[in-house]
Structure formats: C-alpha cells, structure tokens
C-alpha cells in the first residue's frame, strides 16, 4: 500500500463518507471545474522560460511533495486531536495552494485553519471541540479529493505540454 493510500485510509471513515455519492468516475476527463484560478496559474506559466515549462513544473511537483507530507502531518495531528497543529497545517498548505491557483484546496485549507482554531468556516463564530472534530474529519476527506482533482489536472496539463514540445 502506498503512502498516499495510507493517507486516504487513515482519514476516510466509511461511516463519515459524505461524498461517496458524488465521486467522479476515474475515466472521465477532468474539466476545469473551478479547480484552477487561471489568472494565478497563468502568471506562474509566464515565469517559465520561452522554450519549456521546467520552472513551473518543478514548482508544481515540489508542491505535490509538500502537500503529501502535509496531509500525512494532518492525519497525525487528527489522531491526537491537536487542533492548533491542524490549524497551522491548514494555513501552511493554504499559502502554497493559493500561490499555484488551486482554488478549492486553498478554500478548504482556510476552513481547516478556522476549525482548528475552534471557529466556524467564516472564522467569526466559536465552535466546540466536538463540533470542530466532526467538521475537520469531514473536511480532510473533502480536501483530499479536491487535491487529487487538482493533482490530476496539473499532471495532465504538463503531460500535454510535453507532448506538444516533443
């Protein structure tokens, strides 16, 4: 079992899988359904040299590594119900997700940041520890799916770029 599968398994609770009915078929083409903010991502691509996309691609691949590690850290923090750490991790991943234009992941990270601080999704109102736990548990599943969506989109994008450059 890969580390990625372990990450999914550690977080996913079949009794809590509220998104099962909405899971996309893996064979479907991923449309840009709000996954990427193109204003931000295109700015990133503009920083590439004219001949290739090596800079942005290396950055995106570094982000994949960072995200996998952060999801692992989130799982560990969730096992200990370490809310402050969960908030910190949410904020950390929010920054790089935002920098790459990964809209949904960024918004979920912001919610995690709030929930970890025992605040609701807006950050305005206080919630209890048990409310925070329930919300975070569901959110981690959702965030993982959103990340997987974004990762697939980006991998397909760069694969297409390499095909064109070849």
């Amino acid at each position, binding site marked *: 079992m890969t580390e990625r599968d372990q990450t999914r398994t550690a977080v996913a609770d079949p009794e809590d899988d509220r998104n099962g009915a909405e899971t996309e078929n893996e064979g479907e083409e991923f449309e840009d359904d709000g996954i990427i*903010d193109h204003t931000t991502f295109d*700015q*990133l691509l503009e*920083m590439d040299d004219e001949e290739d996309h090596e800079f942005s691609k290396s950055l995106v691949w570094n982000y994949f590594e*960072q995200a996998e590690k952060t999801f692992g850290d989130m799982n560990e923090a969730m096992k200990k119900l370490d809310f402050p750490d969960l908030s*910190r991790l949410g904020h950390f991943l929010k*920054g*790089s997700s935002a*920098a790459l234009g990964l809209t949904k992941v960024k918004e979920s990270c912001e919610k995690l940041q709030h929930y970890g601080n025992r605040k609701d999704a807006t950050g305005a109102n206080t919630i209890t520890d048990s409310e925070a736990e329930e919300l975070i548990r569901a959110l981690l599943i959702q965030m993982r799916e959103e990340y997987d969506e974004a990762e697939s989109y980006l991998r397909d994008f760069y694969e297409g770029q390499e095909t064109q450059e070849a």
Partner: protein
Amino acid sequence: MSSASSINSISPPSPPPSPTMSMASINSDISEQPRKIKVMIIDDNAINLTILSRLLNKHFADTIQLTSVMDSGVSALDQLSKDQVDLILMDIDMPVLSGVQTTTAIRSSDNHDILVQNKNVPIIAVTTSDAAEQRELYRQVGMADCVSKPIALPKLRMAIESAMKTIPALSTG
C-alpha cells in the same frame, strides 16, 4: 556569409577615449546611475519563496537585487544584524516569530543587534491574512503595505514603487 561580404561588414575600431576625459568625470557618470535596491524576502514556505524570487528576478531585475532569501523571522533578524537591505517582503504567519513579531523586533529601539540602517527599512507584508483589521495591525507595527497572496504582479509593483519612494537617495558604494 561569404568572405567578401564578411570583410565589407567589418567596422573600423572605435576611437580611443578623448584624453580630455578625466577619471573624475568617468566616475561621476557611473555614480549618477542609481544602484539596485537590496531586497530581503522572508517566508516559511519554500514554494512561496521560490515564486517570489522568480517574480522579482524576472520583472524587477533592472531595479532590484535580491540579496537575502530567508525562511524564518529568526534567520531574518540574524541576517539584518549583518547586512544592510533597502526593502523587506515578509510573510506574516510563520512559526516561532510571526511577521508582526519580526517587524516589531526590527523597529524596536531596544534591539541593538539589528544594524541601525535596517531599523526603518520599508517592510511589505505578503500574506493571505489580508482582512482590514489585519492590515491595520500591520500598519500599526510599522509595515508600509500589504500585498495579498496569491501575488498579483501589478499590486506587487505598486507596493514596491511606493515603498521605494521612501528610500533615501541611493548612492554607489
């Protein structure tokens, strides 16, 4: 290209400098060209640091020299005790020392470790924490401006240009 056309395309050498040009006038010409402003960037997230570095090197190469890339407020304070900078672009939410705490330490008259030239260096917050009350806090602790993440190049340019107006006239050396 044929050898005949290549001979015809050779230009005569430039005349030597006029003996009336003195070293003083040559040095004066050089000194009138403003030096690049020295910039430090601070962020605990390596991806953000890479993006900001690339943005600065690609779009501000004529005016900015990126001299310090720091991954924490602690390391930034240490560097500011050694090297003079003209501008700081700083993340806010960092472990150990936040951007607000780092700025407070830089501005503090009790902190004798920071080079005196760095005490009033313009500091621009670069952050996702950009609500109105947070911007007001950054202003209160002495930050010059706040640029939201993800960084929009025009807004970064505007913030840098505005901050540069507060930098004393640059000179060589």
